């Protein structure tokens, strides 16, 4: 018996430049914060802008996370996602308007209760709608991108028009619950209460999602499914069921995002989902299709950059997102953190 061949594992030092390049996506948000601080030069305005940028980013993340997962898992691109945002907003705001007494009472507990109820109602309705959407619209066209895009755009139109039928053709203006109006002053910076709430909800959601993905069995299956679906199915998991679940959860999250965005803007229109979809797509693309972390970073960058630029150079704000997307795609054509997909 011969000895095993002499094997010397090489532990090559990763050069520092490579390490930085690998961690770059994670560093982008802090870098953006610092650059913003230097460019704005006024700590209190910087703080105000940062909080509103983070709030906006968190809300976009809530809407984008479902979409990116749905794509990663089943290679389905759903343009109908925007419809869930609008439906969520309309259902949620109807609850807020219906419980006007609670909403106008100067009690934080009652106000938060109203928001919670609105969120739950919106998520329930959009989750259900997502389930129906998957069954009726998406299911027959698996594997055909062209048809998926066409059919889901059709679904988007129909749902948007149905909103008009049910809630009437006009936009709805309303006021936020009493205790969520106004702002705190902190170091001379005005921080709107609702924005802080949005940041908290977004952070909690992100942490919860990460926990689910990293610590639970279902999260493991979803991650494995994104990476290599066929293999997961070969191991005996019914990925289709998982996928339906993710689709429903993603739709419900879109509904949550819709309520939050509606409360933030204090006006809702049937077309709001369609408008948000543009930001959501930008976020999903720069994050890398299928990557929740990428979407999170992308969403924060879009939110922060838009707010900073709107302050520094209002004219550029319109194209800041497109500029960001162009820059990121030049750097990484697949997006920041593309999920490897075995084809």
């Amino acid at each position: 018996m011969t000895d095993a061949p002499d094997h010397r594992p090489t532990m090559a030092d990763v050069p520092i430049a490579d390490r930085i390049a690998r961690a770059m996506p994670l560093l982008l948000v802090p870098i953006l914060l610092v650059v913003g601080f230097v460019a704005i030069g006024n700590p209190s305005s910087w703080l105000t802008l940062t909080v509103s940028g983070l709030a906006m980013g968190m809300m976009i993340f809530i809407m984008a996370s479902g979409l990116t997962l749905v794509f990663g898992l089943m290679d389905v691109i759903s343009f109908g996602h925007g419809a869930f945002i609008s439906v969520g907003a309309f259902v949620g705001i109807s609850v807020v308007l219906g419980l006007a007494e609670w909403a106008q009472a100067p009690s934080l507990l009652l106000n938060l209760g109203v928001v919670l109820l609105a969120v739950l109602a919106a998520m329930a309705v959009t989750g259900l709608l997502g389930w129906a959407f998957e069954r009726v619209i998406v299911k027959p066209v698996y594997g055909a991108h062209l048809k998926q895009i066409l059919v889901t755009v059709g679904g988007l139109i129909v749902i948007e028009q149905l909103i008009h039928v049910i809630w009437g053709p006009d936009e709805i203006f309303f006021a936020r619950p009493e205790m969520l109006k106004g702002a705190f002053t902190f170091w001379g910076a005005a921080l709107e209460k609702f924005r802080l709430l949005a940041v908290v909800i977004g952070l909690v959601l992100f942490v919860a999602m990460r926990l689910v993905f990293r610590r639970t069995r279902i999260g493991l299956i979803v991650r494995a499914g994104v990476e290599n679906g066929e293999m997961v199915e070969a191991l005996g998991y019914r990925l289709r069921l998982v996928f339906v679940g993710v689709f429903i959860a993603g739709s419900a999250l879109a509904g949550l995002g819709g309520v939050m965005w509606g409360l933030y803007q204090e006006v809702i229109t049937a077309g709001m989902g369609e408008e948000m979809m543009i930001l959501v797509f930008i976020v999903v693309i720069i994050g890398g299709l299928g990557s929740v972390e990428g979407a999170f970073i992308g969403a924060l960058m879009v939110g922060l950059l838009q707010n900073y630029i709107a302050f520094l150079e209002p004219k550029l704000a319109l194209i800041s997102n497109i500029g960001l997307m162009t820059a990121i795609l030049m750097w990484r054509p697949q997006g920041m953190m593309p999920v490897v997909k075995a084809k």
Partner: protein
Amino acid sequence: MLMRLISGDSPRSRLLTALLLVIFFGLLFAPFLFPGVRALETAARICVFILLAASYDLLLGYTGVVSFAHAMFFGMGAYGVGLASQHMGRGFGSLIFGSLAGAALAAAFALVIALFSLRVRAIFFAMITLAVASAMAVLVSQLSQITGGEDGFTFQIPRALGPANRMGEFGGINITGKILNYYVVFFVSLALFLSLLRIVNSPFGRVLQAIRENDFRAEAIGYRVVRYRIIATCISAAVAALAGSLFALWLRYVGPDTTLSFAIMLDILLMVVIGGMGTIWGAAIGATLMVLAQTYLQNLMGSAAEATAAIPLLSRLLDPDRWLLWLGVLFILSVYFFPAGIVGRLRTGR
């Protein structure tokens, strides 16, 4: 001769041929067959939208790439003509310069977008075009000093094409510059339509179809898939811009609602899908049907809504403003059940 003109791509169905001939002669003699401002307006719209839908079909039906920026390219041509006429004075020179500049700009934009997205994944293209098109629409509405903002602006076209230019009478109809203008729109559209037909029936068009069917194989045979897709995108954008120029020339007005809006984009999608993807004839049928339906069917819906006013939900569903709802349903159903559209249906149901 005739076969050469249509590049050997005959409609291949008697009913379809008859329909196309009706459309062709209807449009050719529109000013005499259907006198009246509204009818002529509709006919010119049909000409422009047939061309626009055909150029979109080159992308969607032949290459299998979904773009949401087609209305943007359409708008570039329209604004090109509008701005050129406004700043260079009325005249044929500024019309031609504006059209060419619009087309060149559209092709350049298409090239950049395509380079960024088609290189990676064809599906990126749909999302990126949507983002760019919406940014452009916002930009146009914000830069109101240049573009007139939401209101758009009117401009003057050469006197010869205006209604004040009377050129006598023919068959009881006053021949004015307006009718001349219509024929400019008609013949330019026709020429571009025939060139599109030429393109899709050339070897280049065959390669595009191969890519649509199976891009992996096309690449394996030795065709540079990305390059072909990019060229198709640019051609389609340039033709869309020229259609926009014609539309602006006809309306003597440009504005976001008539050229850039997402609603126009949806109209184009519906025309191509309902008419039949993957055949230029489908674009002709789809565009004609859609424009006619938009002009005349909405009245019908209005009366239906009045008739059912007593029934609460039904009357709202039949409201003329909810017209998109029914189109959306029709759109989904046609993607599922008639993926080849009306033309495909007619060709197989022979």
